[in-house]
C-alpha cells in the first residue's frame, strides 16, 4: 500500500473535524449535515484501501438511508428543527473520559499491532482486482447459507416492523 498520500490526510482531517462538529454543534440539523460529510469521507478512505464495495455500501446505507432518515425525522418533528431547542449533553465529562480512554487504548493497540503482528504477517494471496465480483462469487458459493438466512432475517424484521407500526382499527 505504501505511504499514505495527501488524499488520506485531507480525508482524515475532514473526518475528525466533522465528527467533532457532530457532537459539539448546538443545532441538531447542522449536526446531521456534518454527520453526512463525515460518513462520505469514511467512504473515501475505503476507496483508498481498495474496498470499493464497502465504500458503495457506506454511501448507500449510511448516507442514503440512515442520515436521510435522520433528517426526515428532524424535519417532521416540528420542535426539533427550530432554533429554540438547544441540545446539550449533561454527560460531557463522562463521555469525554470514555472517549479519551478508548482513543488511547486504540492507538496503543494499533501501534503495537502495526509493528508487532500485522507488520510481520505477509499477505499470501494478491488482492483481487475485482473485489465486488469476488464478493459476489463467495456469496453464491461458500457463504451461500448465511446469505440465504439473511433473507429470513429481513422477512422477520419486516413483519415485526409492520406489526408494531400498524394502527389498530379496533
Amino acid at each position, binding site marked *: 500500500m505504501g505511504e499514505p498520500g495527501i488524499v488520506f490526510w485531507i480525508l482524515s482531517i475532514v473526518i475528525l473535524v466533522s465528527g467533532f462538529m457532530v457532537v459539539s454543534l448546538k443545532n441538531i440539523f447542522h449536526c446531521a449535515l456534518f454527520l453526512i460529510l463525515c460518513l462520505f469521507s469514511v467512504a473515501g478512505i475505503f476507496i483508498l484501501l481498495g474496498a470499493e464495495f464497502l465504500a458503495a455500501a457506506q454511501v448507500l446505507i449510511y448516507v442514503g438511508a440512515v442520515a436521510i432518515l435522520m433528517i426526515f425525522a428532524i424535519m417532521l418533528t416540528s420542535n426539533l428543527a427550530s432554533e429554540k431547542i438547544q441540545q446539550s449533553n449533561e454527560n460531557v465529562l463522562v463521555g469525554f473520559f470514555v472517549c479519551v480512554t478508548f482513543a488511547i*487504548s486504540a492507538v*496503543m*493497540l494499533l501501534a*503495537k*499491532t502495526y509493528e*508487532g*503482528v*500485522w507488520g*510481520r*504477517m505477509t499477505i499470501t*494471496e494478491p488482492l*483481487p482486482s475485482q473485489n465486488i465480483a*469476488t464478493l459476489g*462469487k*463467495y456469496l*453464491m*458459493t*461458500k*457463504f*451461500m*447459507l*448465511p446469505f440465504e*438466512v*439473511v433473507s*429470513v*432475517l429481513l*422477512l*422477520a*424484521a419486516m*413483519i*415485526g*416492523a409492520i*406489526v*408494531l407500526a400498524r394502527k*389498530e*382499527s*379496533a
Partner: protein
Amino acid sequence: MEFKLPDYNLWLMLPELFLFVWALLVFTFDLVTKRKKESAVGYSALLGLLLTGLILALVWTGVLVPGKANGYGSGFGNMFYNDAMALFFKIIFLGAAFMAIGSSFGITRQKIVNHRGEFYGLILLSTVGMMFLSSSNELLSLYIGLELTTIPLFVLAAFFKDNKLSVEAGMKYFVIGAFSSALLLYGLSFLYGLSGTTEIVQMKINLGLVHATIRDIGVILIMGVVMMVAGIGFKLALPPFHQWAPDVYEGSPTPIAAFLSVGSKAAGLVAFAKIFVNGLIVFYDPLQAPNDWGTLVGVIAVLAMVIGNVVAIRQSNIKRMLAYSSIAQAGYIMIGMVSLNEHGLASVGYYIFAYMFANMGAFAAVAIFEDKTGSCQIESYRGLAKSSPFLSVTLAVFLLSLAGIPPLAGFLAKYKVFAAAISMATADADYSWLYWLVGVGLLTAVFSLFYYANVIKQMFFSTEDSPYKIKFALPSLVVLLMGLVGVFWFGIFPEPVLDLASDISAAFGFLPR
C-alpha cells in the same frame, strides 16, 4: 481462488427448513381465516413444533438422512454443522418454544386481538434462528443466527402496543440488543483479523500458529475477548450487563419473558461455547496464561450468582424476581462453562435442560395467574393453595427445582456443575480458583431459598383466603404437566439426558482421561 458450489446435504437442515415453512403457514393461516380462529392459530403453531421435533428425531437417528447412520455431519460446504451440541440444544429450543406458545393462549385470547398469527409466527422464526445458530460452524452464520434469534424477540417484547411498560421493554431490549451485537461483531472482527478465517475449527489452528510465532498478539486478543464477553454477556444478562433484564421481563408478555430467559439464554450459551470453549481453547495452555478468558468469566459468574440471588430477595413483582433468579442461574451455568474437561459442557447441557422445564413451568404458572388476575405481585399469591391447589403445587415444585432441592432435576443440575468445577480444580492446579466459584455457588444457593420459599410461604402458609379461583385451558395444563414430568422424571432418571449431554463434551474434544 476457486469457487465451487458446496455440497448441500439439505437433509441435515430439514428441521430448520420445515419450521421456517411452517412459520410462514402460521402467518398466512391467520390471514386466510380472517383472524377469526382464536386458538386454532396457536394449536397450529404447537403442531408445527411437534412435527419439527419428530423430524429432528428422525434426522438425528439417521432415518431421514440418506446414506448415513446418524444426523451428524456438515452441509452447505462447512457452513452448517450438526454435532451433538447442535442437536441437543435444538431439543431445548423446541421445548422452550413449545412451552412459551402453550402458555400464551390466555393473552392471545384477551389482549392480542389482531396479530395472533404474527405473534406465534415470530416465536417460530426466532426458534429457527436459534436452531441455525446452534448448527453454525463459522462466525458469520453464527452472528446471523444470533440476529435472527433476537430481532423477532424485540418485536415480541413490545407486542402490547398500548401498554407503556411493554413498549419500554421492547425499546430497551432493542437498544441493548443492537449495542451488544455491535460489540460482539467488533470482537469477532479481531478474531478474523488475527486468524484470516471465519471457520471456527480453522480459526483455532490459525490462532495457535500465529501465537506460536508472534507472542504479542495477546493485546489484540484481550481486546477482542473483552468485547465478545461483553456482547454475549448482554445476551445472557450476566452482570455487569444485566440491568436490562428485570425491566424487559417485567414489561414484555409473560410467555415472551419466559422464552427470553430460556431460549435466548440457551442460544447465547451455544454462541459462547462455540466461540470461547471451542475457538479459543488453545489459550488454555498454561504457557499462554495472559489470554486466559476463564478467570474473566469466573469473576462474572461470581457477580451473577451474588447479584442475582441477593437482589431477587427484595423484589415484590414475581416476574422481576424470576428475572434476577435467571441471572443467578446463568452464573451457575457459567461455572460449568469454564470447567474445561469432559464434565464441563455436559453439565452445562444438563443444567439448561433441567432449567428449561423448571423456568418455563414457573413462568407458565405466573402467566396463568396473570391472565386471571392481572397481577404479578407476590402478595397476590396469598392463600392460593386453598383456592387453586394444583397451580400452587406446580409453581412450588418449579421454584424448588430452581432452588436445587432433591430429588428434582434442578438439584442434579447444580450438583453436576459443581462436580465438574471440582474435578477440573483438582486435576489442574492452575484452576484452583474454581473452588472459590463452587463455594460462592453453594452459599448463594442457600440465599436463593429465601426468595423461592417466600412465594411458597405466601401460597401455602398464609391465613388469608385467596379471592382467586383459577381454572386453566388445555394448552396451559399441557405445559404445566410437561414441566412437572420433566422436573421429576429427569431428576430421578437422568441417565438418558446425561448420556446425550456427555456427547457434547466429546464432540468438542474433551475426552475422559
